[in-house]
């Protein structure tokens, strides 16, 4: 056992940081004995301290606190912000590599106008900002009378709110977010059940952690902060970790127990455990009676069909294991489940997430210390004056998905093909790369290429992504390291915080932040929209946004954030059990285990297991494809980071050796992966080719491909090629880009999305990434 716990040590670190602030003038010898964990950085040769600014990492959704260290106005290193309550001094590989994105040799630094036809034959001509604005304003003015013909497409709508503000100010409701391709099902399930979108398992204080289709030690929406606490829970608290997955990953590798589960069936695992808990009377009767909208009898009755024996037959997890884990989970308090966007992985995802939540509900592990907690985060209001929201459109809110508000791009994008119903005048894409990231991405590319569907496409992007490559004009936005934003996230520490993103270096060359772009454009387009962009500066805009956060102003407001990067109420403790006072933010004020809104759509009101039709009559040769994130790359975002690509630059097909030998496939063989979904008639035959990686860490009926490879955009680094020196802007030059070695040797892998057909959960609207049936053959 350690005599000093990690937590003590961190405190010690924080204390000595304060000390060092005073002592830093003294000679090294006079300093504290124990080394401090960060917060400063020195030049390697001179030993001189570097100037620094705190900010926020957005290389993934976690939004860790960073410090940018600068020498001669060049960013030389990114470190963790020791004051940040989520990640402290720690960053993951991607956070460390952010510097590569900033100085990507192929970065776009001037506005580009397309010459030649859209698509493969496009070439680009630099133009002035003035000319670019004039051209865009022209196009926007031409649809001034039909503002809903302006469509804005982004990754995270809530993030800086600027794109939505811009669309709404113009009069268009068509600001579309991308949650439909990630965690829409989870958001809908949690919102319906406890009135808040999302959750935050308190793993640091838990004693028993059940993981369903999530991989928190490798990819998690709060990766660093969450993984840190999960390991703390396991090491300091002796929490037991039990994982159900289709493959051995970094989380199951650390688990006390790990079970392979048939894909798409984990709701059945959860429900059969819930059944055991009810049958054996292990549930928390008081909690269930007081806080749910169902009675124990109703629950027991609706769960009775999910016997462990049935679960064994359909999920592959032995009934005895289900019984034992269920009773361990119910008798160890506190306990929690961890489930993630993979819940959105299947057409039955929303109900699956609700089934997993049920385990916490039955055992009273709801918003308690060590249990499944409500997401704690400040609501940062829109800056006033805010444009009124136009009436929802059929595009932003597809009629068949009433619960999946504004986030349904998987469903929405194909709708654009109906030109009569959803005419588009101007499409603006920003921070989202659907041509790479959407299901059936080739169809998305076809849509974006078609000038009769998309007459004009403005891409706001620092990089030549697959999507930007199909634009008419590209506005070089700054990267996250040169821009401002207020960043709030659900706190893994359960104490809400407000963080700031501020430029650690000024915008390179003539790139501009989206605040400047939207403000400039709003003024050009005019017609009243400019009044919503009348802030004197971005700082004024941010001040207006954080005005609503109580306590922050007293601490110093934006100035405090600029200095420290993050603010949280220092007196604040996790207010577990917050629901006790006012109930849950649901219509009944209770946990809605039975959801009227779901039954209103014609689905079972109670959490239920609905077998996935694509899997119902699998033939011997059919395999299910699991697409997974790794600790090295984030989806489509980090492909131009050379330090990351050097580690993960391609994605072989992981396959169980027994499965492989039946197919005559040996390790390293070239294989063709052919999509075989028979359920989706409109989907064309699609395939990708890669090499086979034989691994015993794989369910025999599953093959797996990592996400984030096989780019056709971004430029040389993502293509694994050396950048010709004469092509690089001076400010981006880096001798390393001439050492890129992997493309030629190993290849750059394949984009798994090419074989994923569009298929969404009819309740939550989330894309079913995991319902892809494939056939694999040696070539």
């Amino acid at each position, binding site marked *: *056992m*350690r005599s*000093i716990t*990690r937590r003590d040590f961190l405190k010690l670190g924080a204390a000595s940081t304060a000390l060092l602030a005073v002592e830093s003038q003294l000679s*090294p010898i006079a*300093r*504290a*004995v*124990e*080394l*401090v*964990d*960060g917060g*400063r950085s*020195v*030049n*390697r*040769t001179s*030993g001189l301290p570097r100037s620094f600014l705190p900010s926020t990492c957005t290389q993934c959704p976690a939004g860790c606190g960073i410090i940018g260290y600068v020498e001669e106005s060049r960013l030389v*290193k990114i*470190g*963790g912000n020791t004051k940040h309550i989520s990640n402290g001094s*720690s*960053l*993951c*590989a*991607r*956070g*460390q*590599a952010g510097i590569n994105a900033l100085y990507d040799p192929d970065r776009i630094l001037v506005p580009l106008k397309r010459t030649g036809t859209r698509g493969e034959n496009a070439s680009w001509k630099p133009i002035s900002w003035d000319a670019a604005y004039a051209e865009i304003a022209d196009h926007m003015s031409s649809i001034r009378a039909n503002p809903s013909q302006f469509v804005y497409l982004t990754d995270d709508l809530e993030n800086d709110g600027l794109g939505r503000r811009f669309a709404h100010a113009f009069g268009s409701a068509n600001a579309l977010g991308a949650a439909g391709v990630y965690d829409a099902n989870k958001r809908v399930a949690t919102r319906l059940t406890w009135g808040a979108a999302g959750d935050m398992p308190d793993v640091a204080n838990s004693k028993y952690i059940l993981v369903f289709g999530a991989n928190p*030690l490798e990819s998690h929406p709060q*990766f*660093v902060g969450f*993984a*840190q606490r999960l*390991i*703390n829970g396991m*090491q300091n608290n002796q929490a037991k970790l039990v994982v159900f997955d289709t493959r*051995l990953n*970094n989380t199951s*590798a650390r688990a006390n127990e790990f079970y*392979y589960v048939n894909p798409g069936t984990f709701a059945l695992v959860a429900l059969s455990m819930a059944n055991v808990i009810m049958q054996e009377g292990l549930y928390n009767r008081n909690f269930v009676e007081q806080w749910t909208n169902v009675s124990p009898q109703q629950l027991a009755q609706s769960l009775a069909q999910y016997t462990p024996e049935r679960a064994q037959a359909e999920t592959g997890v032995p009934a005895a294991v289900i019984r034992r884990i269920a009773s361990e989970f119910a008798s160890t308090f506190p306990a929690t489940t961890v489930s993630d966007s993979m819940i959105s992985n299947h057409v039955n995802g929303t109900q699956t997430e609700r089934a997993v939540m049920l385990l916490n509900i039955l055992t009273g592990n709801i918003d308690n210390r060590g249990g499944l907690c409500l997401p704690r985060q400040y609501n940062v209001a829109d800056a006033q004056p805010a444009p009124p929201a136009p009436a929802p459109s059929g595009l932003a809110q597809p009629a068949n998905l009433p619960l999946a508000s504004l986030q349904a791009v998987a469903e929405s994008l194909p709708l654009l093909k109906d030109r009569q119903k959803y005419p588009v005048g101007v499409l603006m894409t920003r921070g989202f790369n659907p041509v790479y990231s959407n299901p059936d991405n080739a169809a998305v590319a076809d849509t974006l290429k078609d000038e009769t569907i998309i007459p004009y496409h403005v891409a706001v992007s620092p990089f030549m992504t697959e999507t930007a490559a199909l634009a008419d004009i590209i506005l070089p936005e700054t990267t996250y390291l040169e821009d401002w934003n207020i960043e709030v996230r659900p706190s893994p520490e359960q104490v809400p915080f407000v963080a700031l993103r501020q430029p650690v270096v000024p915008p390179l060359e003539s790139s501009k932040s989206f605040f400047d772009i939207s403000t400039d454009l709003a003024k050009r387009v005019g017609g009243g929209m400019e009044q919503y962009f009348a802030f004197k500066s971005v700082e004024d805009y941010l001040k207006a946004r954080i005005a609503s956060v109580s306590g922050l102003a007293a601490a110093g407001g934006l100035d405090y954030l600029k200095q420290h990067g993050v603010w949280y109420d220092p007196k604040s403790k996790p207010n577990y059990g917050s629901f006790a006072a006012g109930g849950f933010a649901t219509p009944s004020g209770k946990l809605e285990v039975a959801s009227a809104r779901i039954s209103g759509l014609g689905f079972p009101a109670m959490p239920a297991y609905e077998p996935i039709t694509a899997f119902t009559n699998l033939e011997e040769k059919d395999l299910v494809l699991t697409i997974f994130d790794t*600790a090295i790359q984030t989806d489509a975002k980090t492909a131009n980071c*050379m*330090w*990351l690509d050097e*580690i*993960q630059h391609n994605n*072989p097909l992981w396959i169980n*050796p027994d499965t492989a030998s039946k197919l005559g496939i040996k390790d390293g063989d070239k294989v063709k992966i052919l999509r075989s979904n028979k359920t989706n008639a409109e989907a064309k035959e699609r395939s990708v080719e890669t090499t086979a*990686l034989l*691994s*015993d*860490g794989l369910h*025999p009926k599953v093959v797996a491909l990592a996400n984030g490879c096989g780019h056709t955009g971004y430029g040389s680094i993502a293509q694994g090629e050396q950048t010709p020196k004469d092509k690089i802007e001076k400010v981006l030059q880096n001798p*390393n880009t001439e*050492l*890129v*070695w992997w493309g030629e*040797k190993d290849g750059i892998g394949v984009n798994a999305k090419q074989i994923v057909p569009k298929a969404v959960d009819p309740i939550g609207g989330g894309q079913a990434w995991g319902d892809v049936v494939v056939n694999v053959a040696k070539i």
Partner: protein
Amino acid sequence: MANKRYAMVIDMRRCIGCHACTVACKAEMAVPLEVNATWLKIIEKGTYPDTRRYYLPRMCNNCTDAICARNCPTKATYKRDDGIVMVDQHRCIGCKYCIASCPYDTRYVNPLKNIVQKCYFCSHRVDAGLQPACVETCPTKAMIFGDKNDTKSEVAQVLATNATVVLKKEMQTNPQVFYISADETVMSNVEKDINYRTEGTLIKIRI
């Protein structure tokens, strides 16, 4: 007071195999592409369904009996009083004999500077009172670094209260990177059917 003796402990019960240490080192030490001062080895062991995955972060052990220093013809490689094994970048002639001699293959020729380099336990940070960059960034704090001669330091206490192992003890270089709960197989370099996949094949003849 006894001399300082810096040492690193890597607790494999906490390591999640995330490569953050690798990339932090690239940034901190300006390690070019192609080469690594620290890297992560990952193996899988066992047959389905009893398969396990193991990691091992590797770096220069800053050995107390460093054979690289003994074999360096110019004393460009030398040991500081606090145990950190350094390479004097102005003295090194690039004969690479130290690389050939190191039993852990932790040194490299910087392809941009034509100088031999390795992990120096971030000596410049240590001198400034800071933890090494990899230690600072490790998301789960699996790495512990400090003066093991200072009994109050965390590293000394962890060493005193945990069973630790070093790589290739039989080489008698007295490594100062200690591992807790490391798997034997991942520590060994001799395996049947060594199956390198993601390797950089840096067997590159530079002429």
